[in-house]
């Protein structure tokens, strides 16, 4: 009974109901996108005109703003962003799947487990950053437990690890919840059949669980990829702004924008936008044709589980 003839009047109602949303999205997403792309080809400030007068204004600059893209600071930020994304998403997938497998079997204490798994997700990222900064102090509890004297939050290689740990802590449980939602729709007779056929737990996991949970996992990975590629607040709070070892593309764009270098900021922003769009496109093309409908149902399931 889901297919109904479309009364002509409904299009008008739909248009009326959607128009406020469209206006707002045009204002807060479309306008900034177009403005940033335009701005990335323009330069503003003061220059001398033909008669030697100082004029203030804006002029076409070609690709001048994009010059920074090949320079060390942008490359470093792009490298950091990519490294964080690859490492944290990989860790979160492994931990998230493991958590989901444990939680699927948990009956006693399930409510407690659900409540505790929501804590890392509910803690604001800025607060999580401060919390890990405290844990990672030179004389903090991490160094005490490990018996080391590592300067985790100083600008250096250890800072990268500190950010990875903090991010993984915060988001692996979220991946776990999304995967758990996928696990719960696998019918139990599939597992019984595998058992009858003498499948080992290892084989069952690789041959049955993983392929069947793949759609849920792909959606979780897509969400995480998009989030990780634009990460800003965690490195900002945990290590600090303008720190070479953890500066991400978002951090670089923010820094340029707040120093009123709108041209380069827009150029870097456009580059980040293209980077994210390409990754999302490749991901959807390579891995899931039916992602759109999956995203829709997964969110719902994840919320039901939570």
């Amino acid at each position, binding site marked *: *009974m889901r297919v109904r003839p*479309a009364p002509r*009047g409904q*299009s008008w109602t*739909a248009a009326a*109901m*959607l128009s406020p*949303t469209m206006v707002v*999205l045009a*204002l*807060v*997403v479309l*306008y*900034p996108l177009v*403005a*940033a792309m335009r701005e990335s080809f323009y330069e503003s400030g003061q220059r001398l005109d033909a008669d030697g007068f100082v004029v203030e204004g804006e002029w076409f600059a070609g690709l001048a703003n994009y010059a920074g893209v090949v320079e060390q600071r942008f490359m470093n930020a792009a490298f950091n962003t990519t490294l964080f994304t690859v490492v944290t998403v990989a860790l979160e997938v492994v931990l998230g799947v493991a*958590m989901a497998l*444990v*939680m699927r079997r*948990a009956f006693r204490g399930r*409510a*407690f*487990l*659900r*409540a505790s*798994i*929501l*804590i*890392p*997700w*509910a*803690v*604001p*990222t*800025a*607060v999580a*950053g*401060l*919390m*890990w900064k405290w844990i990672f102090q030179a004389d903090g509890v991490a160094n005490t437990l490990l018996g080391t004297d590592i300067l985790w939050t100083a600008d250096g290689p250890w800072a990268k690890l500190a950010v990875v740990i903090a991010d993984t*802590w915060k988001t692996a*449980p979220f991946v776990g919840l999304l995967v758990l939602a996928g696990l719960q729709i696998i019918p139990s007779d599939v597992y019984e059949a595998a058992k009858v056929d003498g499948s080992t737990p290892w084989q069952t996991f690789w041959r049955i669980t993983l392929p069947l949970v793949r759609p849920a996992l792909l959606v979780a990975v897509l969400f995480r990829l998009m989030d990780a590629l*634009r990460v*800003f*607040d965690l490195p*900002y*709070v945990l290590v600090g702004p303008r720190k070479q070892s953890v500066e991400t593309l*978002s951090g670089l*764009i*923010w820094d340029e924008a*707040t120093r009123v270098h*709108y041209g380069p*900021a*827009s150029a870097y*922003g*456009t580059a*980040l936008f293209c980077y994210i769009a390409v990754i999302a496109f490749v991901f959807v093309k390579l891995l899931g044709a039916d992602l*759109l409908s999956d995203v829709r149902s997964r*969110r*719902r399931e994840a919320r039901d589980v939570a």
Partner: protein
Amino acid sequence: MWRRAGMIGIALYCLVPFYWMVVSSFRRTADIHDKSPLPAPWSLESYDAVFAADMGFGRSLVNSLVVAGTTTAVTLLIGTMAAYALARLAFRGKNVILALVIAVSMFPGALLIVPLLELFTTIGWINTYQAMIVPSMSFALPLTIWNLTTFFRQLPYELEQAAMIDGCTAFAAFRRVMLPLAAPGVFTTAILAFIATWNEFIIAVTMVNDQSRQTATVRIAQFTGAAKFDTPFGTQMAAGVLVTIPLVSRCCSSSAASSQG
């Protein structure tokens, strides 16, 4: 046996860092570096310090409440209508709009803030609430529409058909019949949108530099101690606990409600 170890492992993973923040917030400043599992003695010194007038923390909580509350209210108002149209009405281009809404939710905030910062500087919006509320819709609105679209899809069609047979227009069916039925879904979505806006950082740190307008997440990150390089960790941990507790209790209660339902 393994199952129990796994469950304990997950609980420890999620709770231990948070536990350390809570414990540290109850230590005195003098023994903030203690590593004992419980504070000895317990102290509310850090909580007193958080609410000292010059910290501006109380004010920042009010600011967060205004920004997150207004954003949630406005997105619900317009997002509910959009979600209903996408879930229940027949019209062309529906899938394009849905795809657009997901695409928007994956937008990098850093790109949006550049032209908006420039615009808000020109029109004098820097250090205002609306400079945080308006950009926050860019992520709150897609989130609201997504959640409510899936929710509306699951409600039975018979009710609004009956309403329309009785002479209701599509909009009246939405307002009189569907909206009351959707109340639980709208409530859950409101919580999610509120949490997302409450936790927002990059917009708030960019559009506001006046301490009296900063939201809580930004204010805590900028707490300074007596000396310039002396980070007041006890105070930050206490503030962190205070900012997190309402969110944790809200999502635990909504989790309890949804597992009953």
